[in-house]
């Protein structure tokens, strides 16, 4: 029995384990400095986690991977464009861009939801195609409509022609670069210790209130102590500390808090009536409908939430450390692809996803992303391979996940009809 549940576990998370092994292998083969990998990973995790987390609700509502979050990213870019053009900077600028994203994202999400309701069962592919289609509309908007029909300041337009500049800059006097990230930074280790202390305190608190078992509390405290002890090992702690060779790794506290709040949001929504509707619609539209749930409306809400969250995620991404400028006409293009691949790597499937899966997935996916180029050039002696490898990786993961899903579904179906589809004379 135990052995069986173990193999079940392995089967269920096969993709995740595969990628854990792959990323360890890549980190080794790439020969990259471990400090560099760690700092890049943390950076990318806090940049991308928000967008990946935005995928969860539509998955639970049975709509697969919402590749149309690309459109949420477009909404965010429109928001950023207007903010820059109006010269609003700092955190106020971010809030303004966020508000514009909220309005536009809701509107776009509403339309996407309506469209996806017309292609039930094909949402994943449908949303991907919608993303491509919207990209065309976006180009049109930025090339011809902005600057002519909708006036913009010359900070963002091409002087002497219509259309928006090819790249938009958030740094310098624009004042949006690191507007959130830069508010409050602490060294990674300090952050980790505070987090550990909080987790342990919370576990003990829950135990004294009899909300959790002794065993769970002990496990939490144990893990926390273990983590803290691990960083005491010089070789490990030095990755994050300031040494002769490098600076200390710092983390942006506010951004991480935002990610935490989003996780909390996802889990809170799931314990409300709305969350129950998402789940019910995701599991059986027929039953949900018979129970009087407005299936189409529920699905539209799921997509609206996802689109807005993805838009905000895109703002978090754009302002983050190390970005600074973005390609006006292309920055949104890979958003859906990378986020979708990340959540799948984390062990989510097109009908099941959790916060943890999203976070683990982002972590693993980006560890491959960072090391792919060096690893590929070390392996094949050609650095160009690395570039292709990234695209190959993302599409590969998605294709793999879709195949696994289809395979599981057909297996389930087969099990359901086994009773009949029997083998006759042998």
């Amino acid at each position, binding site marked *: 029995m135990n052995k069986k549940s173990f193999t079940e576990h392995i089967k269920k998370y096969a993709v995740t384990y595969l990628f854990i092994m792959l990323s360890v292998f890549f980190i080794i083969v790439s020969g990259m400095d471990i400090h560099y990998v760690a700092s890049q990973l943390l950076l990318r995790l806090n940049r991308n986690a928000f967008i990946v987390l935005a995928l969860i609700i539509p998955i639970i509502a049975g709509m697969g991977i919402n590749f149309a979050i690309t459109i949420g990213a477009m909404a965010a870019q429109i928001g950023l464009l207007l903010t820059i053009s109006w010269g609003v900077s700092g955190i106020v600028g971010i809030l303004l861009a966020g508000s514009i994203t909220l309005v536009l994202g809701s509107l776009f999400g509403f339309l996407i939801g309506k469209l996806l309701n017309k292609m039930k069962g094909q949402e994943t592919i449908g949303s991907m195609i919608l993303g491509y289609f919207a990209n065309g509309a976006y180009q049109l908007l930025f090339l011809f409509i902005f600057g002519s029909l909708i006036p913009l300041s010359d900070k963002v337009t091409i002087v002497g022609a219509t259309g928006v500049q090819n790249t938009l800059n958030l740094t310098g006097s624009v004042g949006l670069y690191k507007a959130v990230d830069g508010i409050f930074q602490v060294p990674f280790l300090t952050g980790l210790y505070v987090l550990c202390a909080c987790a342990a305190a919370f576990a003990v608190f829950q135990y004294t209130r009899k909300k959790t078992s002794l065993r769970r509390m002990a496990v939490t405290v144990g893990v926390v102590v273990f983590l803290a002890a691990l960083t005491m090992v010089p070789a490990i702690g030095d990755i994050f500390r300031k040494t002769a060779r490098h600076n200390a790794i710092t983390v942006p506290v506010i951004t991480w808090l935002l990610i935490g709040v989003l996780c909390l949001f996802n889990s809170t929504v799931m314990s*409300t009536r709305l969350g*129950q509707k998402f789940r019910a619609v995701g599991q059986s539209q027929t*039953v*949900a409908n018979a129970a009087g749930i407005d299936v189409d409306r529920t699905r539209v809400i799921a997509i609206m939430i996802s689109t807005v969250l993805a838009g905000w995620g895109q703002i978090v991404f754009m302002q983050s450390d190390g970005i600074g400028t973005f390609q006006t006409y292309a920055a949104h293009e890979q958003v859906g692809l990378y986020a979708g691949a990340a959540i799948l790597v984390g062990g989510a499937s097109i009908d099941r996803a959790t916060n943890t899966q999203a976070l683990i997935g982002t972590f693993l996916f980006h560890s491959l992303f960072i090391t792919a180029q060096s690893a590929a050039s070390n392996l094949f002696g050609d650095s160009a391979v690395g570039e292709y490898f990234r695209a190959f990786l993302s599409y590969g993961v998605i294709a793999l996940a879709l195949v696994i899903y289809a395979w599981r579904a057909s297996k389930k*179906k087969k099990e359901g*009809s086994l*009773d*009949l589809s029997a*083998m*006759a004379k042998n």
Partner: protein
Amino acid sequence: MSGDYILEMNHITKEYGSVAVLKDVTLRIRPGEIHALLGENGAGKSTLMNVLFGMPVIHSTGGYRGEVIVDGEKTNILSPMDAMDKGIGMVHQEFMLIPGFSITDNIKLNREITRPWAVSRVLGSDLEFLNRGRMAEDARAALDSVGMGIDELALVSGLPVGHMQFIEIAREIDKRGIKVLVFDEPTAVLTESEAQQLLGVMKDIASRGIAIIFITHRLDEVMDAADTITILRDGTLVQTLDKKKTSQEQLAALMIGRGDESVISVSRREKEISGKVAMEIRDLWVNMPGEVTRGVDLDVMEGEILGIGGLAGQGKIGIPNGIMGLYEAAGKVKLFGKDLPLNNAAGALKCGLAMVSEDRRGVGLLLDQSIEDNIVFSAMQVNGRFLKKWLGQKDAAAIRAHADKMVADLDIRCTSAQQPVGTLSGGNQQKVCVARALTLEPKFLFVAEPTRGIDIGAKQLVLDTLVRLNRETGMTIVMVSSELQELRSVCDRIAIIAEGRVEAVLRPGDSDVEFGLAMSGASRKGGKRK
């Protein structure tokens, strides 16, 4: 006086395309009465109820004509939600439960008990927190009122079929302000004792003033529980009768439009069966929730029809399900002298076993596909029949001929064998399942409750077909059924299961007393008997 009625459906006409499935049907129900709705498979019973419940299939296919009056008020019910608001509840023929949800979550689906908080006050009640504690309490109470002791937090998936029915009923009872409750063949999936329990629950509900519309094929239940009876035939109203002024025989005659066929008879076997053992079952344990089998020893002879009977929950259903690898099993099973791997559904199939499942929902019909494709599907997949020699194309002519024969043999009521299975009535879908299993021509066939939800006339046909195949091709059949009468009319021997074991193996001709004792687990003979 029309004020007497809680529900009136007057002159209802419904057409699917050019086919009229309801023609000027009128149904009137008083509060607190149990009103039985009778008719053959495909007579239009479910369709009439779909009209009442505002199901999307009705409105997406052009709606209906006629008027519906609920509580004296003329209404047009547009959606199931609308029906619910007007106090009409339905226990569906196909279960409307979410397998991945707990019983509580299913009972309370879309009627959750919630707790408001700051955010929900601003953004609306959809964001109120679920109050799982109180939901569970309500579910518990509703389950108790239908006499179900199961854990209200258990997941629905994996529960035995009979339980699901009671969960559906518990859900309807849990709704407040319900005026009319529709039961579409609730007993079709229940065993006899569960059915008895259900009738008790129904009477109990009716005594609280709720009107019940009760669709069934079992006339004894009608005579037991109903106050008034309406009979449909081919979409037309035949008659509405008072229970006290009618008899089973009259009802059967009105339904079928022919004489009484309620007694099933089968010609007896002429030559004795061979002495060879087809299947040897030793110490079989099956972990099927609600139907646990605890150490069954049984020999099935080649070429016989062996019946397996017994009360609900005693484990008789567990036997075929365990051997077919659908539920966890332990023990030793030999088929034609060879060991049969347990817990291995594919392995069981490879060894030449086939099964018609008791679980109507799990039968896995391809609803969008035609009847003929469904019938030949397994045979085509498994033994490559109905394919042309060259390039393996479908042999359309052979398929059509075979399907037409099955449709005629089992009297599948349809416009043609090309009709999609999804548009058949429930009973006729069941017949397609039987046809599909028979098409496999297995050497060894399990049939579990093959006649559930099938009307009397069709029952005879299904049983006749099984017997004919047994006689002509020597197919060994093990038939599990809760209807003793059915077992006694077709089987050569009948094993009675009590408390998960074989209590006795009896001959069809043995006395009622012997059967009674065996079923109650108090048989003198005890244990095995050849």
